[in-house]
């Protein structure tokens, strides 16, 4: 058992942090926020040049590192409030392609991801399902091709993706299809989200798909679950970075803001609140490590049983979601009126932390997953 991050991993994290500090400070980010989708081609290309888009990819595709490196990178993405579709492309979709795609699909798509030429989004969730994994979109077989119909709701980064990974029923199987959002029959309703990112509702009306657009072969249910679990682990890590930054900002603010003739950080009511914020962020980091440790690397056989992995990943997302809400709310509270202003970073951290809780299952959803597991354990 060891939880230590080795020197090489620390160096990678440090290089991501340094890059973002230099190239993506809060004012630069504000400039990106003002753009139509919040993203910057220049930053994305720089990510590619730095190798950040290769993290976690298989070595055969020029990948760097694995789940731990991705976790450390996501912490920095959270700390810098990066608006790019990093989670969707690098944490969710590329590993799904590596896990379930054919060799030809991997060889075609993954180098393009690494080079910065292909942004991906996972179109999995549906409006009626809320957070459940129920899929009603359907791909009917027509000769040696498919015809896709259905709708996907609030697809993160769906507004900026070059290629969508769409889950749909194909006969008795659950499959994932590679769909170009510009294809005939695809309607993409793009919008911004409260945290400055973008998402989309995507409607498919009799979209004709070649057989080669099906990702891999065979049922994708397990691969999709593994992908979502990796996404959850990445979100947990992003939240850890954002919580630490929000806590640091709050401590700094309470040391400099003076009322009643002294820094408000001298007041015990505020000190104890910050102590609680520290405790929750610290334990959220432990849960983020747990979630990452339980993720199955693409292309490897599953070790251990799926039920206990599901339980741990849900426990992590539940804890982190609650901690993110608490830390975010209290960071705003301790900043007083300034917490309500758009000007300071703290309001942006709060919004991102809130959206993280609401993505891929909120704390209540994942509590129910653990609760059901408790019933199966002892009921």
């Amino acid at each position: 058992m060891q939880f230590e991050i080795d020197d090489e991993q620390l160096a990678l994290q440090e290089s991501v942090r340094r890059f973002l500090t230099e190239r993506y400070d809060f004012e630069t980010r504000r400039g990106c926020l003002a753009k139509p989708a919040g993203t910057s081609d220049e930053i994305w290309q720089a990510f590619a040049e730095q190798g950040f888009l290769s993290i976690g990819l298989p070595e055969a595709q020029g990948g760097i590192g694995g789940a731990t490196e991705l976790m450390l990178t996501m912490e920095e993405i959270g700390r810098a409030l990066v608006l790019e579709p990093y989670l969707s492309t690098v944490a969710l979709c590329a590993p799904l392609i590596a896990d379930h795609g054919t060799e030809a699909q991997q060889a075609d798509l993954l180098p393009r991801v690494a080079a910065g030429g292909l942004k991906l989004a996972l179109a999995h969730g549906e409006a009626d399902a809320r957070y459940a994994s129920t899929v009603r979109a359907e791909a009917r077989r027509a000769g040696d091709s498919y015809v896709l119909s259905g709708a996907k709701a609030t697809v993160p980064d769906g507004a900026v993706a070059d290629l969508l990974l769409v889950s749909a029923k194909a006969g008795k199987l659950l499959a994932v299809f590679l769909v170009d959002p510009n294809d005939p029959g695809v309607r993409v309703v793009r919008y911004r989200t409260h945290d400055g990112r973008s998402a989309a509702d995507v409607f498919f009306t009799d979209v004709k798909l070649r057989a080669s657009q099906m990702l891999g072969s065979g049922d994708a249910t397990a691969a999709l679950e593994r992908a979502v679990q990796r996404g959850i682990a990445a979100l947990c890590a992003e939240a850890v970075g954002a919580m630490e930054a929000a806590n640091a900002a709050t401590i700094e603010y309470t040391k400099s803001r003076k009322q009643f003739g002294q820094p408000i950080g001298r007041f015990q009511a505020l000190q104890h609140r910050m102590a609680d914020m520290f405790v929750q962020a610290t334990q959220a980091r432990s849960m983020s490590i747990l979630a990452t440790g339980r993720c199955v690397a693409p292309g490897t056989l599953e070790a251990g049983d799926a039920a206990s992995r599901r339980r741990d990943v849900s426990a992590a997302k539940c804890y982190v979601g609650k901690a993110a809400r608490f830390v975010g709310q209290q960071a705003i509270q301790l900043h007083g009126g300034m917490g309500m202003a758009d000007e300071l970073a703290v309001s942006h951290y709060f919004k991102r932390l809130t959206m993280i809780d609401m993505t891929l299952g909120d704390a209540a959803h994942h509590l129910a997953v653990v609760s059901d597991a408790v019933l199966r354990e002892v009921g």
Partner: protein
Amino acid sequence: MDLEYSAAEKLFRDDVRAFIGEKLPKDVAAKVLGHKRLSREDYLGWHRVLHSRGWSGSTWPREFGGPGWTAVQQHIFDEECTAAGAPPLIAFGMRMVAPVIMKYGSAAQQQFYLPRILSGEHWWCQGYSEPGAGSDLASLKTTAVRRGDSYVVNGQKTWNTLGHFADWMFCLARTSTEGRAQEGISFLLIDMKTKGISVRPIALIDGEYEVNEVWLDDVEVPLTQRVGDENKGWTYAKYLLTHERVNIARLGESKRELRSLKAIAARVPNDGRPLIEDVRFRDAIAAVEIELRALEYTVLRVLSAEAAGRDPGPISSALKISGSEIQQTLAELKMRALGPRALPHVPEALDAGWQGEPDGAEWWAALAGRYFNMRKTSIYSGSNEIQRNIISHRLLGL
């Protein structure tokens, strides 16, 4: 990064588990798991069993007779003992005064006291708190005045845990009133049989006998029983408190109590169905399970950092806060699981072997009392408010 125990650690765990399975008396384990009253002999019998295997000083280095285990091995050992229902070894000797004697005691003190702590011959208790000195411990008023080769100690200590079982007490006493309050305190080792000591029980909220007042009336303590320098006792006391690191999380105990809670919820009927099928109650169990998982992985991170020689930071205060809140939640849920059966007070059912009516009291009678008793966990060992002070001062540097 690797979340699993190594093969060697798993073998160690199997070894410990097999030993406990063979040697831990079933009747004693049943008392511990059922929250029944334990006798002095219940504690000491198990202590001697461990001593005979060379395991009583699980946290001690080899040079003082410990097994020289790694932090992870100590953690595994604690978790196995606790899960099986072994009585805890009395921390005041093993984990509190012993590390102080190891670090600051004279060679003669080390030679005399440490083997006797290890063997269980000496049961230790703590003389810290006073009626006027709780969280503000440095304001203590018990005095130690030099007379020849001895101190004469006068004062009153309180919240002395299991002092009625104890042979020795480590005690903070004022040897100077000059300078800051912290600068006039000495750390004394006192034989509980010394003339002038009286131990009086304090009636507690659950009706049980656990803590005492200790009155010191002209108690003569040889100078050789002072640890380290005169007036430096505060330094040693602080060392003692920081030495408690991950143990303060009570992780093993809470994991055991979570299992027990689930078993109770599966057994207790709720309108003809097992209570565990009630979503609201089960969600509360799931919520505390998640909190416990977060605590567990924080503890494991601390162990891993220590093994790598890194300082994990002001984390023991965080572990104290979370760990105590989880202990309290588990005790509360075990009581709430009983529903109306939480009401009857049947103290005689807390003795092992008791059978009688009301029906089933032998398994449920302890649970409400334990809920009341466990409110202590956020108060003792530095109240959770003091822990928040420590965290915020270290974070803020104000």
